């Protein structure tokens, strides 16, 4: 594999360039192999995509609340455009926001820093992974503007609708969408191999398995889970692409194919995928809660084991998305059992987080507020999953807004709340300045309160029988009367979007600020806080690479002067 070649000339060059870079702008910001720069590239791309996805939500929510109006900033929303907007909103939020933000950006930034290494083991593969990702992001955005418009067959892309341009009327958009998603998978496979091997081989001397910060564990478990679940879907995507472009019949029943095959391949990946994004977010939340509660984790090993158990179980639940898709009804019983079982490890994860608060001394900093609100909101998303996992009630709830609210109550805490938690916590390390706490708290409340007002009404609408992916509910007499709930959700969304301006203002101010952040502003134990903010090239001077003497959560150890005990401090 491509290891960095060591030509002697380059060797001397690399040594004494800490701090000052004589490479050009392009080399520094675009062609860099430094894991911290690649992390920033992923981070900015995903924030940009989050804004795109959020604005798409604004457009189609306006259409739902006020059907037929010209949405300010967009114009009339036609049924085809509506479908393209929701499809790409869902795809972007999952594949170009949640995954790059939680796994790629923070994984790249934190894994080397937290395990005391100077970079990933394969820096150039890392760069390649981002470049493929960037191309995929450009493709998905471009697919909205090609002839026929963007793909509108939902992010699940069920054939025959997705397989045949005659049915979806967006032949080009559908193929570009599919290629973009496939490229994104490739980028994350490359990145994942890098993450896994880096953790396995490049830990600082002394760092044993149970000295690894939970964040790193979670990101790596997620990468393995992704790698093992996505393969069949990649094969399936090739088959779907051939159906679209070469006119094969893999999913066409008239020619011996089977449309339900795709559903199995998709959900065999799709369900593990939700834990692929959940685990890293849980990791951030645990690290943040331990730091600001000044507490050792309640049961580090339980945490790691339950994460692994969740990952393993997640391979056996996929068909709960297909209870009424025409699979053998006896199968549904099996999948109901496995689905409900998965509530046990996840409940345990949450109980351990809650128990960690016991006996702490909780500081309500902005990152801590985000982390705590993750637990409070994710619980709602988690327990509503049980209504869907029970086959009997899913008959009614399937493909209603109840499902929609369920997964926004999981995805939003994970991708957005978890994203902000990580962002506000590690910002000083990444950029070397502090974010403003007051602005941070205004933004926090301005985000989580409107959030409830968006999606609680959508739960109600779902229970009222409102189904998904409908551009105008006035066509359904029984649903028309629930319009006030739709308006509430849309207005709350607008409030939430406006509060994001506070975030960007805060971000902008801090990036411009001259005040340097200290090395360890939160008095945390993990290794990334033992190097200046931001860390220099190579993270630590080569002769001062950290050694590890203890686990990452030794807070408030009795008989010590300070209430923290960095991992690298010799006892």
């Amino acid at each position, binding site marked *: *594999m491509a*290891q*960095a*070649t*060591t030509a002697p000339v*380059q*060797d001397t*060059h*690399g*040594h004494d360039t800490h701090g000052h870079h004589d490479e050009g702008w392009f080399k520094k910001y675009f062609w860099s*192999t430094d894991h911290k720069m690649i992390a920033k590239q992923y981070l900015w791309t995903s924030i940009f995509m989050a804004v795109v996805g959020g604005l798409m939500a604004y457009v189609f929510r306006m259409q739902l609340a006020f059907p037929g109006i010209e949405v300010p900033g967009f114009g009339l929303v036609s049924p085809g455009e509506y479908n393209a907007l929701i499809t790409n909103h869902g795809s972007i939020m999952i594949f170009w926001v949640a995954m790059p933000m939680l796994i790629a950006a923070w994984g790249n930034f934190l894994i*080397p820093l937290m395990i005391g*290494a*100077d*970079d*990933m*083991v*394969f*820096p150039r593969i890392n760069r390649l992974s981002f470049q493929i990702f960037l191309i995929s992001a450009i493709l998905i955005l471009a697919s909205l503007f090609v002839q026929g418009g963007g793909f509108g067959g939902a992010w699940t892309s069920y054939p025959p609708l997705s397989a045949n341009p005659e049915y979806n009327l967006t032949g080009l958009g559908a193929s570009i969408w599919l290629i973009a998603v496939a490229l994104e998978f490739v980028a994350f*496979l490359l990145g*994942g*191999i*890098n993450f*896994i*091997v*880096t953790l*396995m*081989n*490049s*830990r600082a001397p002394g*760092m044993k398995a149970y000295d690894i910060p939970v964040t790193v564990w979670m990101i790596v478990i997620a990468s393995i889970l992704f*790698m*093992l*679940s*996505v*393969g*069949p*879907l*990649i*094969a*399936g995507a*090739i*088959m779907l692409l*051939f159906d679209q472009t*070469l*006119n*094969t*019949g*893999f999913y066409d029943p008239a*020619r*011996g*194919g*089977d449309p339900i*095959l795709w559903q199995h*391949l998709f959900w065999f990946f799709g369900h593990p995928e939700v834990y692929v994004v959940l685990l890293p977010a849980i990791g951030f939340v645990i690290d943040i809660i331990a730091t600001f509660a000044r507490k050792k984790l309640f049961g580090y090993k339980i945490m790691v084991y339950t994460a692994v158990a969740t990952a393993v179980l997640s391979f056996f639940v996929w068909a709960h998305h297909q209870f009424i898709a025409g699979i053998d009804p006896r199968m549904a019983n099996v999948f109901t059992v496995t689905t409900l079982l998965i509530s046990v490890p996840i409940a345990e994860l949450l109980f351990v987080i809650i128990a960690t608060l016991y006996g702490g001394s909780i500081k309500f900093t902005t990152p801590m507020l985000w982390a705590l609100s993750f637990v409070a909101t994710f619980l709602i998303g988690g327990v509503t999953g049980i209504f869907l996992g029970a086959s009997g009630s899913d008959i009614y709830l399937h493909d209603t807004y109840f499902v929609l609210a369920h997964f926004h109550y999981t995805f939003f805490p994970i991708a957005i709340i978890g994203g902000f938690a990580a962002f506000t916590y590690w910002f000083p390390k990444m950029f070397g300045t502090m974010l403003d706490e007051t602005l941070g708290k205004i933004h926090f409340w301005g985000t989580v309160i409107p959030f409830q007002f968006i999606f609680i009404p959508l739960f109600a609408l779902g229970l009222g029988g409102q189904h998904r992916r409908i551009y105008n509910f006035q066509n359904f007499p029984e649903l028309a009367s629930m319009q006030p709930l739709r308006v509430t959700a849309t207005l709350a969304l607008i409030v939430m979007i406006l509060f994001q301006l506070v975030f960007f203002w805060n971000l902008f101010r801090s990036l411009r600020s001259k005040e340097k952040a200290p090395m360890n502003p939160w008095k945390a134990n993990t290794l990334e806080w033992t190097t200046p903010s931001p860390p220099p090239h*190579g993270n630590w001077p*080569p002769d001062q*690479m950290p050694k590890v003497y203890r686990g990452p959560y030794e807070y408030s150890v009795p008989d010590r002067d300070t209430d923290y005990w960095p991992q690298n401090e010799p006892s």
Partner: protein
Amino acid sequence: MQKPIATTRSASGIPTGRLAIWWLLASEIVIFGGLLACYLLFRLGHPEWADAAAVTNTAIGATNTFVLLTSSFTAVLAHQAAERGDGKKAARFLVFTIIGACLFLGIKSYEWWYEISHGYTITSNGFWSFYYTAAGLHAAHVIAGAIAMGFVAKDAAQGKELQRVELVGIYWHFVDVVWIFLFPLLYIAK
């Protein structure tokens, strides 16, 4: 660029490159595994595909199996040479392996040309769709492997990065093993 310290560590005791190759293969196994599982499920549900499978040329398939196995053997010899530190010899064996890959692709092209010109195309029926998709995906891996071996052989000839000879070798064995699965499934089962 300076070689990162991270690359020089080996906390697991397994060389970094080999570890990476194994994970790469893990991700490839699920891709091919998914494809072949789909094929098997369809094949069980469509006994009539056996008629289409009867058209495939088992002799050509067997020849290609032999070619690939031989090329795997030269890959092993390349590895042995690299172990002894003989980069030149390793490079030479890798070139043999690449020739094997090209031979394989040449035979495959002839076979496909023959079949396509006789009207058996990827759209003919489910069997042919799988036939071209699975063998095509495999052929793409053959091409990728041959290119990778070219780069490794170039370095090895100058005595550099000899550990990579083993890594492409592992990859090449995997490509071989995939074919060992494809051959009976696509050619022999009639």
